């Protein structure tokens, strides 16, 4: 099997394996959907009791205990892990990630935690893809594309939205649109969607009535973009705050998650719409069935943001897609009611129209991925007639939120660690190179006790410009002599027997270690205005590294990337 796959054309290989990955991603999302339905049904009788507010706390505690002690995985919804793996580790992901977060997320959401199933299913699909790629012994670049395919299949199948899956994968995970990526991810996404349709039926998740859209509605969209921008910035910042504060105040992770769940349960007593993934609440917004007025709609927006941050920020497992859709739909609803209140004479389009736009605005801003927002909303609502308005709101909302929060919620953690390396950036290209590949050995080692006379003789015999000085007894590196720096001594023959190499060398030349990364090395070059630096490890000289060699390898790496 492996032999035949490797004999195929590379693109064909990726298409075939992409289809298998699509099946894996599709099955993962169907499994999660079914488990959530079962979980919600199982807990339904308990929701009417006075103690129902404790359910999210129990769910969150169980979810984290399962994740840490049974699956022995780490916290977080997993999308940053997928992006890190794609950018730094050739798409390698652990097999345990294919199921750990699915189970954990099911416990969180089914018990009423305010989170979505999408991010866990993304890491699940990506992990399946990564392990399939490893099984077939594919190269890193191929594995990365398939991981993108796994993520796309997961999103496509959970929302029945193949194009949104492709857009999400290319925008948020891989960060580049290339033909090879597009074909493989397209296949995986289409297969994932079909698997979902086969097992769950072909349904548009939030289908609504047709709209009559006027020019005034288009003008109104601009204002909605401002509202969605602020809602998304509030969500992202509060999430970060809750995460920081909760991890500092409560060290036992399951108690922390339980406390978050308890607070969500209490909020849920007042605002039941904030509980769970919230798809029912969205249907109410879109189907004209949300009764309460303007103020309550605004409270739901704030309540959902707070509940989501408490659930995810304290360690509960789940993603932000679904909460963003709920927050967006209620933001749109609130805005529409506000417009009607402020300008009752104008015939505004209905609440569902603004709810859809609100969803697009919030999800685009939180993910900093406008294409994902646009395609997701048009596909999950079947509302292609609102395409122009959706594009307007998404683009303006992303642009505005970018001012306050320049990175997507998935990228922030990676940016904080300096690990976000987007394709075709200098840092990414340099990260592909290792210092060991760039070592130069065109130098002559000298010892500190050598006299200038002997050194001059040495100079006559070779054309080197750099002479590392190494202790003859211990073999330790001591300093560097650059030909240009000692030129003035060479013509003073009186110094030939009195001056030692020890006095000529520069012990302050910065050194590079094998553990350094190339961007750091370039910074050292810039700070010292040096062209060549010694590479020293454990006090021993391994070779020299020069700016010219780095540039040469950088160029070659760029050519390889272009060819790929």
């Amino acid at each position, binding site marked *: 099997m492996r032999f035949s796959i490797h004999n195929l054309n590379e693109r064909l290989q990726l298409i075939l394996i992409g289809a298998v990955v699509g099946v894996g991603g599709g099955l993962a999302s169907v499994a999660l959907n079914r488990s959530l339905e079962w979980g919600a049904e199982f807990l339904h009788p308990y929701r009417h009791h006075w103690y129902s507010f404790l359910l999210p706390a129990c769910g969150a505690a169980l979810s984290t205990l399962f994740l840490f002690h049974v699956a022995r995985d780490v916290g977080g919804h997993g999308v940053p892990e997928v992006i890190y793996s794609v950018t730094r580790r050739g798409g390698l992901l652990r097999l*345990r990630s294919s199921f750990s977060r699915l189970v954990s997320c099911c416990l969180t959401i089914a018990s009423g935690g305010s989170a979505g199933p999408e991010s866990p299913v993304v890491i699940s699909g990506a992990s399946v893809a990564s392990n399939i790629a490893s099984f077939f*012994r594919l190269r890193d670049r191929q594995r990365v594309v398939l991981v993108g395919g796994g993520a796309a299949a997961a999103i496509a199948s959970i929302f029945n939205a193949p194009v949104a899956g492709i857009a999400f994968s290319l925008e948020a995970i891989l960060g580049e649109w290339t033909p090879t990526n597009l074909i493989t991810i397209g296949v995986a996404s289409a297969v994932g969607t079909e698997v979902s349709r086969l097992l769950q039926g072909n349904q548009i998740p939030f289908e609504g009535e047709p709209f009559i859209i006027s020019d005034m509605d288009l003008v109104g969209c601009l204002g909605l973009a401002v509202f969605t921008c602020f809602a998304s910035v509030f969500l992202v910042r509060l999430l970060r705050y809750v995460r920081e504060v909760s991890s500092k105040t409560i060290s036992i992770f399951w108690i922390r998650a339980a406390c978050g769940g308890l607070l969500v349960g209490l909020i849920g007593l007042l605002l039941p719409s904030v509980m769970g993934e919230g798809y029912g609440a969205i249907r109410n917004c879109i189907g004209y069935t949300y009764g309460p007025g303007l103020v309550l709609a605004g409270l739901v927006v704030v309540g959902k943001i707070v509940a989501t941050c408490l659930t995810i920020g304290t360690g509960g497992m789940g993603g932000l897609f679904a909460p963003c859709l709920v927050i967006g739909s209620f933001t749109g609803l609130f805005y529409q009611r506000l417009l009607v209140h402020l300008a009752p004479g104008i015939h505004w389009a209905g609440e569902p129209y603004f709810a859809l736009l609100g969803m697009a605005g919030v999800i685009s801003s939180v993910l900093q991925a406008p294409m994902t927002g646009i395609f997701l909303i048009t596909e999950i609502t079947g509302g292609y007639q609102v395409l122009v308005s959706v594009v307007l709101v998404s683009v303006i909302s992303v642009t505005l939120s970018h001012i306050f929060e320049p990175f997507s919620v998935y990228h922030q953690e990676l940016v904080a660690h300096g690990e976000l390396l987007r394709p075709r950036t200098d840092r990414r290209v340099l990260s592909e190179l290792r210092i060991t590949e760039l070592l130069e050995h065109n130098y002559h080692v000298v010892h500190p006790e050598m006299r200038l006379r002997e050194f001059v003789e040495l100079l006559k015999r070779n054309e080197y410009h750099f002479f590392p000085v190494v202790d003859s007894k211990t073999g330790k590196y001591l300093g560097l002599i650059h030909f240009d720096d000692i030129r003035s001594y060479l013509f003073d023959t009186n110094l030939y027997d009195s001056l030692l190499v020890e006095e000529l060398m520069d012990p302050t030349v910065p050194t590079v270690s094998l553990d350094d990364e190339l961007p750091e090395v370039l910074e050292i070059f810039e700070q010292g205005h040096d062209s060549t630096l010694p590479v020293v490890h454990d006090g021993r000289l391994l070779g020299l590294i020069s700016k010219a060699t780095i540039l040469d390898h950088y160029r070659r790496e760029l050519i390889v990337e272009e060819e790929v």
Partner: protein
Amino acid sequence: MRNELLHVFRNTPFGRETLMHSVYFCKETGTSLRVYIPKFRQFLMYFEHEVVTVDLDRAFLRDPGTAKEHAEAIIREGGLTPYFIEPKGFTASTLPDLPVDYRYMTCPRTISNLSTKIGLGYIGPRVRNIIRNASFPVFIPTSVYKEWKSVVVFFGGSQNAIKALRYGIEISTVSGFPLLLFTQGEGKHRSYYEEGIQKAGLLDSLKTLNYKWLFFEKGDFRINLYEVPHNSLVVVGAYGHGAVREVLFGSKMEEIQTVLPNSMLIVGPNCAPVLG
């Protein structure tokens, strides 16, 4: 590949014995020692085709205040300079990645489960996973510190055994300790194995080392293992025949690790043959 040995330090008396083994190994093989003192309960190792998660038992995280001090004292006492690893990459905020371009790695029989499982016949699943995927051989020392004074290579003629032999020759050359080859004939003549060694271009190196060959045409393998010196380092290939064959016919490495109490250097299927 760096000429370094990776050691994950466990700040316990058992961990001290393991570190003393690593120090001795490094001194005898001219390898630099790199020590990782865990701050989290897991770390990852990204090998070429698989990422291995190492779940550490609680003992690895015990008393972090004294861990570095203890490790430094042991290493300095052994005459080496202590170097510590600070992971640069993090897959998640509590999940560091360790580099994998080392020449050797020390693992006790289990690093992921209870440290009580250190008896003969048991090698933990994470250690096995590292052996299967690593580009370096894994050094499994005895549970109590004991110096080794000779190198025994188990040679069965396979490609993996050739790799093990290369490592054995290298260690014997650098350390100056005598090299012994152990072969259980299994119906084949000695010349068959010699031919394999010659094809690999190792016969001359062996001859210069004045090696001794423990070649057994008859007898039970487990009984013949008694001939392995008690104070030798055992170098053996592992997982070279594929999972199916190993399940059906068993594995020599498993038999060896069940019977011999010696320190072992296990050469896995993905181990790089780069030496020198």
